[in-house]
């Protein structure tokens, strides 16, 4: 057959998108072989699977639905609504979360749990894999039903053109039938659900989509903070933070500030507690000030005079000390701009700056104007929205369209430009301090970009803040204690209808994410300088949307205190990670490349000891958060001159950030992790981290063997390196009879969440004491977004547990094994 030259091969063009993406054995996708439950002919099954509820959590709406993977490549051209790419289950809206529980086919119930490897991926104790908190929900789009013949599948596919955004604050009536919902989360997740069509013969399916949508609009956009689930969830909190040696400075007491003054050798400054200033306790006057409970001001200035000055500035933010560096203790100071009304008269500003100047040893200050030179919060919000659009394509076609000009689109978001600006300013501030000059960061309200630049500057200068405790203290100091308006910036509360919602809308801005992104860039540039991992940073961003942790829930301390006193809110610091995650998940917060410097730990402990001078330290115990808040200080100020005046911050360990866009990258773990098509199976950073953990684990084990002079428990790698057979011990026969871990049926899926830590430990000990058969350790193939992303089936994780537990032991150890200088 002669085909002829005119034959166009276009019809043969295959969908290039699906072709290079390996089929994923993801846990969301329905298994094609068991399609008996694709078609939910028997609705009784649907109600068999229920979301797990917290105490006082209530379901407000539920409906059967199909869940789609964010950009599930869908077969084009078939007209039948078969939902093969989707998972069927029950979608519920509660007063805490949006939950999807896949419906398990009955036939598989008796079978063993899915791949145990999935246990290694991050699991939040409050949220399942297919659940998001209502706080996390940013935008809801409805896709209208197209008529009788169109399928829900079709509706999902054509979503781009027909989707309609539900406005948060308008109590709109939702018109027409809803075929599908797209939910865009603040943490870059896109959730897609489709509903059974009305023409199906099922009963009760009539208005599933509308029911869910209206519940979401009602509950996901609260108009008052006390409608948040945090106020309903009354479980008591028992802190595990107060362990000796561990320690996040909460900056909730005068002592914390004083300790920081001493650590920095800042002698010209004094701590003021609002609770001990009569003026601020006076109901008549207190309203004029919006001051945090504790702040540090020049010693040469009386509190009364300072308060007087502060009234000229926005949010009463006149010259707060936050940090000092170097032998001359050059200070980092945060300052707001003058109130618009007083801006003509710069006298107050000059006086304030003069007070700061007097504190500097060389009487030199440099003022960095952040408002003029850095993006506004609205700019940041716009950049974030554009960036998020690039990370949440709804269809393969959209993904490819974006991909074709991806870098140009990325450029247009300005996100990396703003990251670059922030790093640039932090570099400038840091070098100003290094040169012995006091640096003043000035911004309109002193509570947004000031937080970013100030904390970045300290990260660059001070290795203490690059430890996990140090970093948490830094966030506590710069963001929480000095009152970054988290509630407004993260849109935990939406304006009331008819109210000034326009204004409130413009207050939403992920300034904190901008900061975390900058920190991530530093982590890329200095991979061995940070104790925490990118997983820690990503989890921190996720934690912003957990309402039951108060850290990122409030604008001011006054708000927080009111919530505690009036609504009996239980305070839970987010830093108590054990509340949310198992030990296994917390292990991934540490960076295996981190090189602890000799003396880092002991130095801090020494300071702690030196501070035990006649002051009540906040005691650890149940509800220390509340305790410290209500703790009153008897003394007016603490005078740092009573203590050593020399800064104990090492001066040879500062970093200089590479701050050009050229040097920056996209934070793939945080932004791309919900896109399975970008998951490099078995590749990426997790494999490298794992290798380093394995090395650390081997070193720790051999070290222990050497210490004990007993060579029974040498790591496999040892025998491998020597080409020797591991001596097989007698217990080996029992290896296979590992007791099955307790199964727990949650969300209709078998889980072993609760029993996990103990199982992990048991497995770890089993593998070390019994001596495994496999001479070559088979490491598991991880997702490149690990511990996010979806698990890959088929590998045994016990070795991984073992590696993790022994390497973490080593990372956390205060002994000198891992000191920088001990390994040559």
């Amino acid at each position, binding site marked *: *057959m*002669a085909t*002829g*030259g005119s034959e*166009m*091969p*276009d019809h*043969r*063009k295959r969908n*290039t998108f699906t*072709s*290079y993406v*390996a089929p994923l054995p993801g846990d969301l996708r329905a298994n094609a072989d068991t399609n008996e439950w694709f078609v939910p002919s028997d609705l009784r099954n649907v109600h068999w699977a229920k979301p797990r509820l917290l105490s006082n959590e209530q379901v407000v709406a539920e409906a059967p639905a199909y869940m789609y993977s964010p950009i599930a490549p869908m077969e084009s051209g078939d007209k039948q609504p078969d939902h093969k790419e989707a998972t069927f289950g029950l979608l519920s809206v509660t007063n805490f979360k949006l939950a999807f529980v896949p419906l398990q086919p009955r036939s598989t119930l008796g079978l063993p749990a899915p791949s145990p490897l999935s246990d290694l991926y991050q699991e939040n104790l409050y949220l399942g894999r297919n659940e998001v908190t209502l706080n996390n929900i940013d935008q809801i789009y409805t896709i209208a039903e197209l008529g009788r013949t169109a399928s829900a599948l079709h509706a999902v596919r054509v979503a781009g053109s027909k989707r309609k955004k539900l406005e948060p604050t308008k109590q709109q009536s939702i018109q027409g039938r809803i075929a599908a919902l797209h939910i865009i989360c603040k943490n870059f997740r896109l959730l897609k659900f489709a509903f059974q069509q009305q023409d199906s013969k099922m009963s009760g399916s009539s208005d599933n989509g509308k029911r869910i949508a209206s519940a979401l609009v009602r509950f996901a956009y609260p108009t008052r903070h006390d409608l948040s689930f945090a106020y309903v969830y009354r479980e008591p909190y028992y802190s595990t933070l107060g362990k000796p040696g561990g320690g996040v400075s909460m900056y909730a007491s005068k002592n914390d500030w004083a300790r920081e003054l001493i650590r920095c050798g800042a002698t010209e400054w004094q701590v003021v507690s609002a609770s001990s200033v009569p003026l601020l306790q006076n109901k008549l006057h207190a309203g004029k000030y919006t001051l945090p409970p504790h702040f540090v001001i020049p010693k040469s200035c009386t509190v009364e005079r300072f308060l007087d000055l502060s009234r000229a500035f926005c949010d009463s933010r006149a010259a707060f000390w936050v940090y000092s560096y170097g032998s001359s203790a050059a200070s980092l100071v945060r300052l707001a701009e003058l109130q618009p009304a007083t801006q003509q008269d710069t006298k107050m500003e000059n006086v304030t700056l003069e007070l700061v100047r007097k504190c500097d040893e060389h009487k030199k200050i440099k003022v960095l104007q952040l408002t003029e030179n850095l993006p506004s919060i609205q700019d940041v919000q716009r950049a974030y929205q554009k960036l998020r659009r690039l990370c949440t394509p709804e269809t393969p076609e959209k*993904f490819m369209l974006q*991909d074709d*000009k*991806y*870098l*140009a689109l990325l*450029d247009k978001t300005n996100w990396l*430009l703003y990251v670059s600006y922030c790093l640039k300013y932090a570099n400038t501030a840091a070098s100003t301090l290094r040169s012995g000059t006091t640096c003043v960061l000035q911004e309109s309200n002193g509570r947004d970009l000031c937080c970013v630049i100030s904390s970045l500057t300290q990260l660059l200068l001070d290795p203490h803040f690059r430890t996990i405790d140090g970093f948490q203290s830094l966030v506590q100091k710069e963001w929480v204690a000095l009152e970054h308006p988290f509630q407004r910036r993260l849109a935990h509360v939406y304006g009331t209808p008819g109210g000034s919602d326009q204004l409130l809308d413009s207050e939403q801005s992920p300034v904190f994410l901008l900061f975390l992104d900058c920190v991530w860039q530093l982590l890329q540039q200095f*991979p*061995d300088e940070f104790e925490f991992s990118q997983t820690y940073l990503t989890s921190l961003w996720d934690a912003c949307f957990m309402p039951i942790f108060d850290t990122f829930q409030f604008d001011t301390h006054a708000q927080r205190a009111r919530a505690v006193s009036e609504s009996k809110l239980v305070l839970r610091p987010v830093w108590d990670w054990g509340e949310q995650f198992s030990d296994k998940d917390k292990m991934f917060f540490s960076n295996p490349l981190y090189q602890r410097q000799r003396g880092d730990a002991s130095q801090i402990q020494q300071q702690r000891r030196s501070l035990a001078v006649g002051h009540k330290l906040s005691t650890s115990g149940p509800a220390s958060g509340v305790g410290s808040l209500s703790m009153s200080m008897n003394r007016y100020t603490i005078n740092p001159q009573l203590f050593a005046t020399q800064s104990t911050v090492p001066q*040879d*360990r*500062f*970093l*200089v950030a*590479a701050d050009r*866009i*050229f*040097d920056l990258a996209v934070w793939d773990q945080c932004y791309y992790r919900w896109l399975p*098509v970008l998951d*490099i*199976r*078995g*590749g*990426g*950073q997790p*494999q*490298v981290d*794992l*290798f*380093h953990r*394995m*090395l650390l684990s*081997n070193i720790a084990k051999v070290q222990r063997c*050497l210490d004990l*002079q007993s*060579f029974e428990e040498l790591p496999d*790698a040892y025998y491998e*390196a020597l080409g020797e057979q591991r001596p097989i011990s007698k217990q080996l026969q029992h290896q296979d009879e590992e007791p099955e871990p307790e199964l727990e049926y949650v969300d209709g899926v078998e889980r072993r969440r609760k029993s996990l830590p103990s199982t992990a430990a048991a497995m770890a000990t089993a593998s070390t004491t019994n001596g495994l058969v496999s001479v*070559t350790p*088979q*490491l598991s*193939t991880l997702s*490149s977004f690990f511990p996010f992303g979806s698990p890959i089936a088929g590998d045994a994780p016990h070795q991984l547990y073992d590696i993790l537990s022994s390497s973490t032991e080593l990372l956390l150890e205060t002994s000198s094994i891992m000191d*920088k200088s001990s*390994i*040559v």
Partner: protein
Amino acid sequence: MDASSSPADKMASKTASSNSLDSSSKSSSLGSKHGGENGMMRDTPFIYLDGEEDQDQKNDVTYVCPYRGPVFGALTITNYRLYFRSLPLREQEPPLIVDVPLGVIARVEKIGGATSRGENSYGIDIFCKDMRNLRFAHKQQNHSRRTVFEKLQANAFPLSYSGRLFAFAHAAAGGGSATASSSAGAGWDGWAVYEPLAELRRLGVPNDMWRATKLNESYSVCDSYPAVWAVPKAASDDFLRRVVQFRSRGRLPVLSWMHPKSQATITRSSQPLVGLSGKRNADDELYLNYIMEANAQSDKLTIMDARPSANAVANKAKGGGYESEGAYKNVEINFLDIHNIHVMRESLRKVKEACYPTTDDSKWQTTIDSTLWLKHIRCILAGAVRIVDKVETMSTSVVVHCSDGWDRTAQLTALSMLLLDPHYRTVRGFEVLIEKEWLSFGHKFQQRIGHGDNKHSDADRSPVFLQFIDSVWQVSQQYVNAFEFNEHFLITIVDHLYSCRFGTFLCNTEAERVAEDLKHRTISLWTHINSSLDQYLNPLFPSFTHGAELVLRPIASVRAVRLWKGLYCRWNPGLCMPQHGCQRTRELLSKQDQLFKHTNELRQKSNNRSNNMQTTTRLASPMH
């Protein structure tokens, strides 16, 4: 590690290195200390290679550095390199050094005439193949420019001036012989790295379905193909001679790789000579059927045409085309949408524009986007992953071709083999891969690079091989521990792709190489690399052998593909990021080994002791 690794020092060392263009810094391999050990040390600051001779020297030349401004110094030209060393004004200041192999030079031009005024406006502009340009200013009055220009022309473009490439002089003077003999032995002779029959044996050929044939031993059947082919057993030599007729330039489908388990194969060829009239050829159709039948796992054969479908159609007008699914039974054809050599050349030119001499940071991403380079790389990766999917997941055999089957086809087969077969991700295996898929199958290196000739605007030049190396780098960035070699290894290959110091990348085909007797008259790049292997090894590689997935499936999305700054931006000292990462790995590895060693000694000691104990007790027992 001591205090020298403190961050402050890191910065200090960064600025220090950024002040010089010293090519012996880690970003370039050309001035590396290795390989030149037996060169003679003369009264010059660099070590002469064997066979390297001075051609010209001028002491009053100004190098117009795009970063530091004009610097005054001495320029030396040998038959291998151009070497400039500044005369530092201050004592402590490190001299600025420019060390460029003449092979890298694409074009030399005079700037300024007798009438030109202004400082440094009279001199020579040099355009390089490795993404940089150099400008030297001469003083008009002392006529130093003329000889420099002439010597540069003659030695950079010997083929245009009836000279010989440096590789021959280098080998004739005994270059590399010392290093070759001093290293691990004959096994590391670069010319012996690839033995076609041995490699086929590794793949399992001959077997029931495939055989090796020396039909082309004298290169008379296909002059751009290697001497040894692996073909389906069912096809006799006579039959092959007939199939050759229907393929462009006689490049019929020949085996590149075979899956060890499923025996699904990758074969490569040129386009069929279908033409506008849609000619058919029963032999060709039967031959493809043989290839399909050689794989028992699948009753389909996939043809991957690397070109955009429009180009494939357009080729019919020139007598070429593609296999129609109607004519070929059980065949499905896919077009991979990779553009031709001219598009790629233009794209790389834009990359150079964006990276050298300076970058515009505020428009960086947009500028890189507009070069389309990353999109092209994505296409190649996507094509390779599709081939991998067919072969690995579907167990279907794949035939890859483009028009001639020596550019895009080589990229695709080599890359997909690299993804499928971990052997090719070792140093030795990668050398074999290049020897096999690129050199023996006739990628026209001479034409594409233009070794030693001055036709800088030759339309046959194109960075096809560079693009392959870039793709390999992309995969190595996504699978950091999957490769035995590191980035420096890849940069070294790129450097010597142009340098003309080694014979490896000379000539267009195996036939030409045999005729030139390169094996005996030049040294192989692999000899050079294998004799100092340590610096090319990736310390993370050992972790890969520990059971990670053996088949790689890189993400072919611009979101995952990056510009290779370490290669394209390396001449801009301000853009060189400090190299980190592997330092800590090496420390931990050596700590582990040290502990293992110590433990082993202790165990041996205690074993000896307990053995002694046992013997004494045994001896003692009868006493009881």
